């Protein structure tokens, strides 16, 4: 998922990231902590404002729904007590969505609400890391589709998403906790358990080594590692670039 990632593509935002995956492309920008409107002010915490703009047209109910899911997830991750009475604004712009070839008369941009959610979460996480806002943890998220025959599919195509019996978006924090579970369609508990195991395998670090070990040189991006590993290597790359001057 995090194969095509650019950190801080926007110069004027406090932090930004753009992600491309599975046909979707999203730019996330974070501004904060900034002054908050009086009616949104929270005395002991910072308010989090998520703005989601679709690839075509203006946002509607679908976007508001996704915004509220993202806001609730990020509130767990950002250290909201560190900047009371401020606003952290996260703007997510969908740049490209996969084209549905046989949906010429379809007014809906996509069959499902959930297919966009993992990349939105992923890009907002990266933008937050690029902003250097204090966080309690990091998280990764993934989408798993269950086909009508009961097979689990990672990275499902548009067609597979349409034909799927159920869709599941799960997010795991770096502490190993389930942070978000959104499901759509018909499924039973056994399938959900299976989805949970798949998603955990996708997201979580493959081996929990010594966290202080910083010289993981053998971490290779081309190797199909977990999402958490690739998140870490993106940040390591950023740090290596920023502190190049120290070496000489």
């Amino acid at each position, binding site marked *: 998922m995090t194969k095509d990632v650019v950190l801080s593509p926007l110069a004027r935002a406090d*932090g930004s990231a753009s992600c491309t995956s599975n046909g979707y492309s999203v730019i996330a920008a974070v501004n904060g902590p900034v002054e908050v409107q009086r009616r949104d002010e929270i005395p002991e915490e910072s308010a989090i404002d998520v703005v989601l703009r679709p690839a075509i047209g203006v946002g509607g109910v679908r976007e508001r729904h996704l915004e509220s899911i993202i806001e609730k997830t990020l509130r767990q991750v950002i*250290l909201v007590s560190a900047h009371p009475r*401020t606003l952290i604004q996260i703007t997510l712009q969908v740049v490209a969505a996969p084209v549905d070839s046989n949906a010429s008369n379809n007014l809906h941009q996509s069959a499902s609400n959930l297919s966009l959610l993992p990349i939105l979460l992923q890009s907002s996480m990266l933008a937050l*890391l690029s902003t*250097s806002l*204090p966080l309690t943890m990091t998280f990764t998220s993934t989408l798993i589709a269950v086909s009508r025959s009961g097979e689990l599919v990672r990275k499902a195509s548009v067609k597979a998403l349409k034909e799927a019996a159920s869709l599941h978006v799960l997010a795991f924090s770096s502490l190993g906790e389930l942070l978000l579970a959104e499901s759509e369609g018909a499924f039973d508990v056994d399938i959900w358990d299976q989805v949970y195991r798949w998603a955990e395998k996708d997201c979580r670090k493959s081996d929990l080594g010594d966290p202080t070990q910083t010289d993981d040189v053998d971490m290779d991006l081309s190797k199909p590692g977990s999402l958490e590993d690739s998140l870490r290597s993106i*940040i390591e790359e950023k740090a290596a670039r920023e502190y190049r001057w120290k070496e000489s």
Partner: protein
Amino acid sequence: MPGQVLSEDVLPVPHKSSMPLKLGPGLRHAPPSTITTSLAGPLCIDRKKNAIWVENNSGRYIPQTNDVIIATVHHSSTDWYHCSITPYTTFAQLPQLAFEGATKKTRPQLTSGGLIYARVVAASKHLDPEIACYNPSTGKSEGLGELKGGMVFDISLGMARRLLLNKQREEGKLVILEDIAEQVAFEIAVGRNGKVWISANGVKETLLVGKALQTVDEEVLNVDEQKKLAKKLLRQV
């Protein structure tokens, strides 16, 4: 990475047991003895000072007491100037008498949009920051005050910290300013909020110094590359 718990063997061991461990930005202490990170970046340890922190370069400036900053005057009221340190944050308060030798009758007249070089006197997450242009213990300005002429350039927070180091050359690995200063005379003021003010004899020289600093910052040039850049730029003067 945020959320990691630091194991005890990375923490510096003090020479004297009375010396407390100092936690810098990016680290949180959860009693009794757990230290977790809250920022992503390389972990730095100063064994002499018994301090530990997470280095980071980006983001928005959060005012801290005793930082020198470059602020813009937004408007003034009877006793205060309201200054903007970073855009879209609450204004910092600058008392109109917080200047060297200022009295009720001889107070400096600052118009909105004017630049000031000031020190953060009080900063708390619950209050608006307060800044001053003099040292309250001596009453001297110590270089702080209104910045007249010149231009302001934006740089990253990490670069601003490097420029403010005592040993810019040894610790910050910055040689560009010294190299340029051999041929071009200029004045410089660096604010911790990622702003640098430069004033030289002409606009051309001012832009040269400012652009040089921004290039060094954006492209993360090392010492040799900085020397090359300085040579190239000075040839154009």
